[in-house]
């Protein structure tokens, strides 16, 4: 049987039932089990009422009238009530455990599906969706989708219970049963009206809850900016708007609940009174006896509470549908990357061919256009370009985090798009511009779960010049670095990220301004280490490095000058310096600035001298 479809339009209740159908389809056996248990519970609840009626007529009244009783009568009474209680308890446990198993299994299944999708969807998709929203899709939304599962078996059990009760009531006395046929549908209708009233109110409260969460998430994420600019009070004001709206929405929900609850609860009570009234008439006419009246009245008392489970299921449906829609938006999102079958087999330095690549984030705005170059194996190429010229964008293309709109990128002559999944990462490592660390240990951040011996980790750290500070940490490699690595200094974070790439001994290493937060001395040592490690023995690595500093650039065999998304020039550093004014302006900026200052200082000194001469004259 195929997965039942949930219509995208239509009334909330209809769509809600469709979601329930999906739940049953996913977990048919658990559902069947808990419904059976629930039916047992329902039957035993009705049996309780019947037992009271039976014992009134057959044991209690005769005993009171005769002024005597037998041991057997009392024993049968006790065993009857205890037996029913035990069976009912079994039903209750089965129902609750079944509902729990079903609810949590569904949650787990859907959480796994959502997170699989997160791992599959391309980076672009991630950029378009706020972090807070994605986290709540996997957590709160999955949870609310399956909320109605908790009371569902009970509700189905209640339907069974009502069926049994109707039979029992008619068996006792048709007129009394008619009272039941009047009261129970009324309870049900009241429930339905209640849920209809509640739905829009509850949905609004839910939306506001999300709004509160969004403001808090963003505000706390930027807490440092808020603090440094002294905006705490203003942020609190911003938070107050959704908070007060949520307060009012919740009060409105409770007003509705406050109005309907007493009705739903009071109807069975009024039913009991009616039963008594009608019952007296029936007893007087001899059509019924006291036991029948008591039985029916007791049934009303017993059923009054469970019947509300129907309302609970209906009441959770709107939330469930909203959750379902939000989860589906993730599950049905298109655009996982396509992978081929090709493998990279070489173990020598990689060759890189980029031809006629065009790419833009927004339509009609190319960030890269006509980018074309080749890096021979073992060469080191520096990419130089002004801020915003598209250097980082290029690194994301080279590592196939995104695909170009036009043109192709090949490693060892193989188009990246034809490579098997995970194949590229075995050969190419990127150290991104902003070092991202996981909330994990230093070792975990470097190995990323890969199988590397401590020696290899230390080797990588040594080249990245991070071994010294890691050794001085109290737990060494096992030190936890905190969310996004907050307990480390900026330069320390960058060196961990560098070690992460180096430990993999990539055949193509891409460094995106990866030493910007490192002081010049350490940077010089890192570069020297890289030079020996990379170009040492057998030159097993091709390096593409984005840099501004001449030391880094001078390490390179050739330089690509990127300007406004185009390769403006390509050659050795000296060649470029000679023929490109824009390039000179960029790489010589510090020296020019220093020269300008010196001149100014000299000028100032001369002026000073003149002044003092003038004064002394």
């Amino acid at each position, binding site marked *: 049987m195929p997965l039942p479809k949930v219509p995208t339009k239509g009334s909330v209740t209809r769509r809600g039932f469709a979601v329930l159908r999906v739940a049953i389809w996913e977990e048919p056996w658990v559902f069947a089990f808990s419904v059976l248990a629930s039916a047992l519970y329902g039957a035993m609840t009705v049996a309780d009422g019947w037992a009271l009626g039976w*014992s*009134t007529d057959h044991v*209690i009244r005769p*005993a009171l009238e005769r002024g005597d009783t037998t041991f057997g009568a009392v024993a049968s*009474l006790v065993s009857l009530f205890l037996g029913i*209680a035990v069976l009912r308890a*079994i039903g*209750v*446990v089965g129902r*609750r455990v079944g509902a*729990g198993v079903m609810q949590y299994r569904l949650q*787990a299944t859907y*959480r796994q599906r959502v997170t699989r999708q997160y*791992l599959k969807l391309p980076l672009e998709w*991630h950029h378009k969706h706020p972090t807070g929203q*994605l986290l709540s899709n996997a957590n709160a939304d999955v949870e609310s989708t399956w909320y109605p599962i908790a009371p569902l078996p009970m509700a189905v059990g209640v339907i069974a219970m009502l069926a049994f009760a109707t039979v029992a009531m008619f068996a006792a006395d048709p007129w009394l049963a008619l009272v039941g046929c009047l009261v129970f549908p009324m309870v049900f209708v009241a429930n339905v009206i209640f849920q209809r009233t509640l739905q829009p109110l509850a949905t609004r409260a839910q939306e506001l809850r999300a709004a509160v*969460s969004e403001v*808090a998430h963003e505000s706390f994420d930027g*807490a440092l*900016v808020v*603090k440094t600019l002294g905006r*705490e009070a203003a942020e609190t004001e911003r*938070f107050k708007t959704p908070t007060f709206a949520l*307060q009012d929405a*919740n009060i409105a929900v*409770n*007003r509705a609940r*406050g109005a309907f609850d007493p009705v739903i609860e009071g109807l069975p*009570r009024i039913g*009991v009174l009616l039963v008594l009234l009608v019952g*007296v008439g029936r007893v007087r006419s001899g059509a019924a006896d006291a036991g029948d009246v008591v039985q029916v*009245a007791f049934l009303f008392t017993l059923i009054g509470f469970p019947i509300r489970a129907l309302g609970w299921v209906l009441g959770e449906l709107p939330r469930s549908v909203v959750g379902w829609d939000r989860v589906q938006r993730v599950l049905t999102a298109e655009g996982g990357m396509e992978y081929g079958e090709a493998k990279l087999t070489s173990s020598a330095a990689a060759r890189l061919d980029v031809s006629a690549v065009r790419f833009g984030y927004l339509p009609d705005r190319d960030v890269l256009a006509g980018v074309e170059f080749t890096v021979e194996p073992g060469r080191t190429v520096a990419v130089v370009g*002004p*801020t915003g010229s598209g*250097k980082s964008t290029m690194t*994301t293309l080279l590592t196939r*985090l995104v695909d170009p709109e036009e043109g192709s990128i090949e490693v060892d002559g193989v188009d990246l798009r034809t490579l098997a999944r995970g194949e590229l*990462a075995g050969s190419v490592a990127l150290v*991104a511009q*902003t070092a991202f660390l*996981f*909330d994990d240990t230093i070792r975990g951040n470097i190995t*990323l*779960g*890969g199988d590397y011996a401590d020696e290899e980790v230390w080797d990588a750290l040594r080249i990245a010049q991070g071994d010294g500070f890691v050794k001085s940490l109290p737990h060494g490699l096992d030190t936890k670095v905190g969310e996004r690595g907050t*307990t480390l200094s*900026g330069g320390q974070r960058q060196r961990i990220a560098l070690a992460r790439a180096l430990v993999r001994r990539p055949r193509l290493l891409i460094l995106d301004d990866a030493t*910007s937060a490192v*002081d010049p*001395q*350490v*940077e010089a040592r890192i570069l020297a280490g890289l030079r020996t490690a990379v170009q040492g023995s057998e030159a097993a690595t091709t390096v593409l490095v984005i840099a501004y*500093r*001449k*030391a880094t650039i001078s390490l390179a065999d050739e330089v690509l000058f990127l300007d406004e998304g185009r390769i403006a020039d390509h050659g050795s550093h000296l060649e470029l*310096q000679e023929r490109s004014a824009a390039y000179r302006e*960029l790489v010589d*900026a*510090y*020296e020019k600035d220093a020269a300008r200052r010196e001149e100014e200082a000299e000028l100032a000194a001369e002026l000073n001298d003149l002044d003092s001469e003038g004064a002394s004259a």
Partner: protein
Amino acid sequence: MSAAEATRLDHGDEAGGLETLRQGLRVSPELARGWWITGLLALTMTAGRIVVPIAVQQTIDKGLSGPGGPDMSFVAWMCLVCFGGVLITAVASYFTTVRLATNSERGLATMRIKAFRHVHDLPVLTQSTERRGALVSRVTSDVDTVSQFLQFGGFIFLVSLGQMLLATVVMFVYSWQLALVVLVCFIPLFASLRFLQARMSAAYGVVRAKVGEMLSAIAEPVVGAQVVRAYAIERRTQQRIDASIEEFRRTSTRAQAITGITFSIGGLAAGLANAGVLTAGVLLGVGGHATLGEILAFMFLVALFSDPVQIATQVLTDAQSAFAGWRRVLGVIATPADVVDPGADGVTQQRGPIMIEFDSVDFAYPEGELVLRDVSVRLEPHRRVAVVGETGSGKTTFAKLLTRLMDPTSGAVLLDGVDAREIAFSSLRERVVMVPQDGYLFDSSLADNVRFGRPEVTDAQLLAAFESLGLTDWLESLPDGLDSPVGQRGESLSAGERQLVALVRANIADPDLLVLDEATSAVDPGTEVRVNAALERLMAGRTSVIIAHRLSTAEAADEILVFDDGRVVERGPHADLVTAGGVYSHLHDSWIAQRSSS
């Protein structure tokens, strides 16, 4: 309190229930407003529930088996009276619900806002050691559980308590012997409840811990999407996530099973009580000590008595998570805002050139060694001071102390001779602004981000600010100019562009002291030199402290502070230091080597 404790939030698993309630009421006094009216209403409401068993007893004893056979008019009258009772119950119930909801929602809104504000008042250290998600849940889901509990659990608790009491009273009025039988039958339940309750709270404690683990595992592929892809660690990430999801499922199901068993025990006790009442009732009735109506009424009373007991176990569990949530929220509010705003008692300083003094300042991060040692420096007004030193030597730490994002472990930071701890934040934050190492941008437009510090600034002033830093060309190259969206954390801009925006933002805030912590580290040299020259002009007459690895900044500064392993080892103008043969001249040598090697 040790420094280590000071940076952690109180996660609230210790304080007792009453203590939590007291603290909670102190934070949200609205909760207790007119509590006695609510109490009276709740009492009225429970009273109405007791009418049904009484009606049954009266009907059977007087209506059905009256002297002249079934007595229709008596039953009719009695039913009418009871109907009135049911109506009164309904009305009282409505008002109880609404009052409870209004008071609790108002109280909790107050608490939410106080907690939100307090998170911002927490020391940066606490903010950065706590997971972002955990802080957010303090003002969202944690408060929601309390609200849920007060409105459902709390309501039911009130009603149940009254219902049990009244049922007990009526039972004793009808027959003390039968009442005793009922109570005895419930003793095993009460005895086992304590045990089950303990199991239940242990189980839910485990569940809460597993939720936390699951959430952080799920966050990995979301916040670290790029690294996960670039390193193709999807499989390992998925395994970790699956494992944590599975753990959560297992523990939750277990907790649910314990709850189920607890629940069923209430029903068992009711069954036992029913059997006991009927047996004892028959025996008593045979001796003429109980009427049929009384015995049957007892059955209804037992139901009234046992329902609350069953619900109470559920309510207790809800109460447990609600109280844990409540404690966590209160814990945030109670966590000392180490770096406290002296507020109205604080000094409000005159705007104008600022002088800074570090008076033998030591600083250690929690559980760490000293990161700054005995730092004593004085930065004169109008000065442009560069701070240089190796990575990890304490430069950022110095900047954070300077801007009072943290307080020294010992020693003092003085602004114009006044201890920073005594200056009102409103004054301090206006005078002193820092641009941190990674400038955070909010997910809105460029304009919103730039005027974040001063919302009253007009678009024309914004444009002028971009102009004065020489960034007009860049601004014009953006698709929507000032209205361009910057994306989450500013991710739609390049790293250098993000830093430029953060710079303009600080410049708009117009402080007396500007602290730049590697604020242009990702900007290309050409732009950096231009922006720095512009900043130099703009900051003329004010004080600025600039941390930079690119020593071009140091060359241009009036004075340089050289940090080495937490100490200021050298200070003076570039010309003096560069020839002194110390740390700075080494740093500078490698800088020159980098700058000009070719």
